[in-house]
């Protein structure tokens, strides 16, 4: 059975000479590579990756349009690693700017921020109720989630400079299982 997977998008940068790059999402033999000059658009098939006999169809992700600027590998099956550049794309008339996912995460209230970097969990164990949900009244010291660093789980408490002793949760910013950096907003309260 074939599975479909999006290629990883690396946005145009100085290092890529202004080109968008599409990277391998896994390790394996890359085949059916498309030739130089072909136009790639969202949802198009752009080759296959074979990993231990399993074939993954590589798919152009949403928001990416361009003309292939690099030559396809010489070998029918090219060994590639995760993150390896498979395609470099020249801008194409009508290209969509896909760099528009930044939201003001503190909109709607005050941010409760991560005390240190880690993976943020909403609930004590899979299937359990979340520590807090939107609409909950919380007071200083209340556990709002877990932060996992190197498989060590620490409780994150509602506390911080400028935060009221009692507040209402407007929404959770960090998703369940998200990696967060120190200072990233976890919740918005009011």
């Amino acid at each position: 059975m074939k599975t479909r997977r999006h290629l990883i998008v690396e946005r145009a940068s100085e290092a890529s000479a202004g080109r968008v790059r599409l990277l391998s999402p896994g390790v394996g033999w890359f085949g059916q590579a498309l030739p130089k000059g072909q136009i790639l658009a969202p949802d198009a098939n752009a080759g296959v990756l074979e990993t231990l006999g399993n074939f993954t169809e590589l798919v152009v992700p949403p928001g990416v349009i361009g003309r292939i600027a690099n030559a396809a590998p010489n070998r029918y099956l090219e060994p590639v690693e995760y993150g390896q550049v498979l395609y470099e794309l020249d801008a194409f008339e009508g290209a969509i700017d896909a760099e528009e996912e930044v939201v003001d995460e503190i909109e709607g209230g005050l941010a409760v921020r991560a005390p240190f970097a880690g993976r943020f969990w909403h609930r004590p164990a899979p299937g359990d109720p979340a520590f807090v949900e939107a609409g909950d009244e919380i007071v200083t010291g209340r556990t709002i989630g877990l932060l996992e660093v190197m498989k060590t789980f620490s409780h994150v408490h509602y506390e911080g400079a400028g935060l009221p002793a009692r507040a209402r949760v407007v929404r959770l910013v960090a998703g369940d299982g998200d990696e967060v950096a120190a200072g990233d907003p976890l919740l918005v309260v009011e």
Partner: protein
Amino acid sequence: MFRRILIANRGEVAVRIARAARELGIAPVGVVSEADRDASWTQVFDQVVTLGPASARESYLDGARVLQAARQTHCTAVHPGWGFLAEDARFAAQARELGLTFVGPSADAIARMGQKSPAKEAMRSVGLPVVPGSVGLVKDIDAARAAAAESGYPLLLKADAGGGGRGMRRCDEASQLDEAFSAASAEAESAFANGDLYLERYLTGGRHIEVQLLCDRFGHGVHLFERECSIQRRHQKLIEEAPSPALDDAGRRDLGRRAIEAALALGYENAGTIEFLMDPTTKELFFMEMNTRLQVEHPVSELVCGVDIAAWQLRIAANHRLDLRQEDVAPKGHALECRINAEDPHADFRPTPGTLERFDFATDVGPGTVRVDTHLEAGDTVSPHYDSLLAKVIVHADTRAAAIATMVACLEKTRIEGVNTTIAVHLAVLASNEFRSGTYDTQSLPGWNG
């Protein structure tokens, strides 16, 4: 011998195996996650394949990616190191199906020893005494309550697929059982993708003593005597030593002989370790578990026995005969190992990832010799994604007192800046009366109240 070998691991153990491979003329190939791609230790490899993003599940724990990497780099063998896929029987079996040599025991042996209740049964059947506890797994809280009534309190809940203290909970009375059960099960599920638990009596104040074994593929094996690993915090070993201060010469020979006889009776091959718990009152030694892999603390046995365990793993996997006789293996002197972690011992041992501004180990101290096993150097970053081990400091001297003096001298002059370390804890333990007299147990960290 193999020409190229894939090392399916990261950090200190990957570097250790790469060194053993080089000494045998084997080219080491590495695999990394995106988080480790630019790490300085990856320079020990001839070639490196990036497996996936930082998440271990999509990189170091993804057996298909690892084995595919081995194929496309023309490796003929895979060494799993410790942790990650080291005790994953399906990985070992799949490697062999692909025609790769898995450096370790058979998939069957891994599967049997990896599930602790079948392991107990197997060891009981070849004559090793086991700790009283549940017969088989405790599937749910009702089964746990029933098994607890048999074993009595205090008890330990342990992840069947576990190791390194993950998914383990101590429970002193019946009222704590529900909470401990769900916590241990969730942690086991998260760490090993297997939430199965078993339960056994907790022997308060016992000692953790383990025997290092090497068995070839022709039914010959030797034991490299014991290591004592009772200095632990939350079941994570901090200091290991060999020989154990709790055994006399006749006792250690007897324990080693029983362990190697049990392993050979089960047809075990390659390196392995049988862990025992010493009852604090009766001094009986009970089988706890068998680790079917190289262990973090293997260097203490290497130093006292003068045997390169990692190199023997590779030779045995390549069908070489183990040309060591038991009578040729004699422990000489005393070795100690301190695991130096990037953790803040004053903040509940919270991991403190960061950049190493300074990383200088004082190896020119005496009276013994110092070996430092590490993958790091000044300027390197300690990633938040994986375990917090910075380095292992291993010393070897003629006597236990001289080994302790060497370790203290080394750690006092060692300078690590940029991250917090556990060195202060090691020095406190090494200075304590319990440690100096060798009367410590697994229950507490002598000398440390932090």
